[in-house]
């Protein structure tokens, strides 16, 4: 059976995780890192990129060898592949984006334990072809990344009055603005994330069964 590379079904595989099946706002996975690295916009974006790379890479690799993997050790094999990719990403960040890798510190390494990654491998890559798995990985990675970017943007704006490290509030709002300390702490992220989930679920008319 052959089907077009971008058939309607494949498009759904790619776009569903953006909203109707978003890993963070609908499945509520990957919350820990979403809270931890989003105090500023730049690390949030880099973290999003790192997760996109890891999810899609791992999806393709696992999907390619899915028929060779002995069933009883499949989780171990999946973890080994994920861990390898994550360490590679970490090493590359240390070599080419040192300052950001310092900011992200342990959280790059913790992508290994991000439920989104293992979740996609188990739920999708083990039963689908590499191309579809790549789309699924990219879709889920992007679905994760845009949520992080929004939270990072809002937290940096209200918590530090800046965007990407550039002072914004101070330049636009002369009446004076006191940085909201709650926004730079994890509870601020938690509240924002809750609001975002609410808005997103209302818009996509998602109902929990």
């Amino acid at each position, binding site marked *: 059976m052959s089907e077009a590379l971008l058939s309607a079904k494949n498009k759904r595989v790619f776009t569903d995780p953006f909203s109707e099946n978003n890993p963070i706002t609908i499945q509520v996975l990957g919350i820990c890192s979403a809270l931890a690295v989003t105090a500023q916009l730049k690390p949030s974006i880099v973290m999003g990129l790192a997760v996109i790379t890891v999810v899609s890479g791992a999806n393709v690799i696992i999907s390619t060898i899915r028929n060779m993997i002995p069933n009883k050790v499949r989780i171990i094999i999946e973890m*080994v*592949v994920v861990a390898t990719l994550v360490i590679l990403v970490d*090493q590359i960040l240390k*070599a*080419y984006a*040192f300052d950001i890798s310092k900011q992200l510190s342990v959280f790059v390494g913790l992508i290994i334990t991000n439920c989104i990654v293992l979740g996609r491998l188990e739920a999708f890559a083990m039963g689908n072809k590499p191309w579809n798995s790549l789309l699924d990985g990219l879709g889920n990675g992007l679905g994760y990344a845009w949520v992080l970017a929004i939270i990072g943007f809002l937290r940096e704006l209200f918590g530090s009055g800046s965007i990407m490290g550039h002072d914004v509030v101070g330049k636009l709002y002369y009446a004076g603005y006191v940085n909201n300390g709650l926004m730079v702490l994890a509870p601020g992220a938690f509240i924002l994330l809750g609001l975002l989930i609410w808005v997103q679920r209302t818009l996509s008319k998602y109902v929990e069964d």
Partner: protein
Amino acid sequence: MQKHDNTYTLIFVCIVALICALLLSTAASSLRSKQDANSAYDVKKNILKSFGALKENTTRAEVESFFTNKIEGIIVDAAGNEIEGNANEINPEVEAKTKTPENRLYPVYILKENGVRVAYTIPIIGKGLWSKLYGYLSLKNDFNTINGITFYKHGETPGLGAEIAADWFQKNFVGKKILDQNGKFISVSVVKGKAQDYYDEPKLLHHVDGISGATITCNGVTEMLKKDLTNYQPFFANNRESI
């Protein structure tokens, strides 16, 4: 789902492990030099920052050339004598872990203007609330006035303890004195709240504003300054006389 026997499983796992190990070791060894260069550059950047010589738009090349041309790294022993060697060879953390204070070697970075030593920077390491704090403290050549301070590595709470890395906190230290009027070493302490609410001149010279919500981190900074500056007092005393 096909059945695989144990031999197959074992071989499969070994092959996967081997491939991953090969990939990682290749990546690690080929990126090593670049990573080391990055950390070394980060250290240099922070030493420069402690001297107050780092601007926002200072390029990497400028940092490197400034470091080679104007900064001298020396080693001193616990008695305050300069000994042969390069400051970069000394890891203060390893020294502190493996030796008693009398036997340790201490690195000092010296800023030179036209061959004259104008400022001295020492590494400071201490404990915050969650993590170790790493930084540099720079003194003017009277070995009394603080020239600048920087923290380059820590794992404190963002927005609270992590504010030690912020400019407003570090600026408070500039111009403070580590000796009292009689020349006795008393270091500089971080207070809870605003220093001027508690102290008047001349005591204000030994206290800086704290960070609200980060008392333990601030106490850590006070402790590490006292501890590390104490170790350097012999060196400072020797050189103070020679001025």
